[in-house]
């Protein structure tokens, strides 16, 4: 008897799992992806030196900023050290599918 009641109760419940991971709401200060605003950067290299995973490469002369998606551990130090707030960590969850160029080390 107890089993039937339990089964019926569970039938009417919302499922515990969510189908699409992107549909899960994340908190505002969730650390997802590093985003860099080019025009605010002063090419001071601080983020590159502070990054524990060496996932940022900045070249001052050529003004290039390379961010390696797969190496980043989303710790948020780069956002902390940047003097001009050029780096922002967006609450965008990591994607389950990867593009080939992200895999580059």
């Amino acid at each position, binding site marked *: 008897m107890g089993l039937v009641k339990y089964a019926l109760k569970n039938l009417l419940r919302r499922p*515990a799992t969510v189908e699409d991971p992107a549909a899960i709401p*994340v*908190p505002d*200060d*969730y*650390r997802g992806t590093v985003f860099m605003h080019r025009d605010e950067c002063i090419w001071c290299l601080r983020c590159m030196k*502070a990054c*524990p*995973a060496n996932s940022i490469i900045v070249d001052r002369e050529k003004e290039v900023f390379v961010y390696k998606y797969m190496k980043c*551990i*989303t*710790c*948020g*130090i780069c956002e*902390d050290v940047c003097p001009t707030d050029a780096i922002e960590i967006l609450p965008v969850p990591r994607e389950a599918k990867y593009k080939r160029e992200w895999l580059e080390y």
Partner: protein
Amino acid sequence: MPTIVPFGPQHPILVEPIRYLLALEEETVVGVEYEIGYLHKGLEKAMENDYIKDIYFAERVCGICSMVHSTTFVNAVEKLAGIEVPERVKFIRTILLELERLHSHMLWLGIVADSIGFQNLFMLCWRDRELIMDILESLTGNRIHFSMNTVGGLRKDISEKGIRFMLGNLDRFALSVRKIENSLYNDLTVLKRLRGVAYLTREDCKRYGVVGPNARASGYSNDSRMDGYEAYEMIDFSPILKAGGDNLDRVVIRMDEVLQSIGLIRECVRLLPDGEIGEKYKRGVEGETFFRCEAPRGELFYYVRGNGSKKLERVKIRTPTLANLAMMEKVMIGLEFANVPATALFFDPCMSCQDR
């Protein structure tokens, strides 16, 4: 002449790779040899580095209990630098440490239930574990690797809203833990599979250097929380002890610890003072020190040596799971082969932090 049967590194019951070589006589185990290192990451070498970066390396020693690793490391460096962190920082760290214990014990219970053929309980445990993961995500901004600690304090404060969300979820969690306890202790099959299996006395625990809940299930009290690091000296706390020393008591003690942790978190929230969350320390550190904390699996020990600059000279990590490995040679002997997989999991192995 015993038969040698390999168990692992790939086995349906094992989540992570470890290899046991079991010597069997008919169905009984008469000898054990283990082989570890499949997940060795070389983190101790990598941590001869800037100590600010090392916090994030320390966090990644283990994929389940990351907060306790970073807290231990940060505490060791703070001890070297001679900084006292504000009270609010201590309480917030304690809350996070206890939340981590909750989700680690639930994860363990789920895996163990699966290994004794109780699939349904596995699903229930992992569903309720999500409540805790949601709390952690909303408090810190990530599910496992919180990146909250820094030398001298915290990087982020927790909000009023987060605390309210936490207390609400904790109530729901406590209810389901009671339900799980009920179904677990009243199930005849489960009791038969657990009672009296892999028996370990208090003397054995001493002899084999067992730590954590496994030791406390045999009545051997070693809980580093009694050292009074962080906020544990300010709240009322005493470790739970059980005398049985078999697999059943290992389940019971963890369930009791879950309920105790919920109480500790509520008390921390009640006492949580207002104030600063500390300042980042930036100078070099010199000298050597050690620190130990109680991880969900037992005593975690860090040894740190600095040479006056920001780069550390040596960091040694002794994880509880490595200490618990030695007794495998004792408990496995005399077991039925069918009980080996469950017993291998009952001591809460985490190969990731065992191999570092």
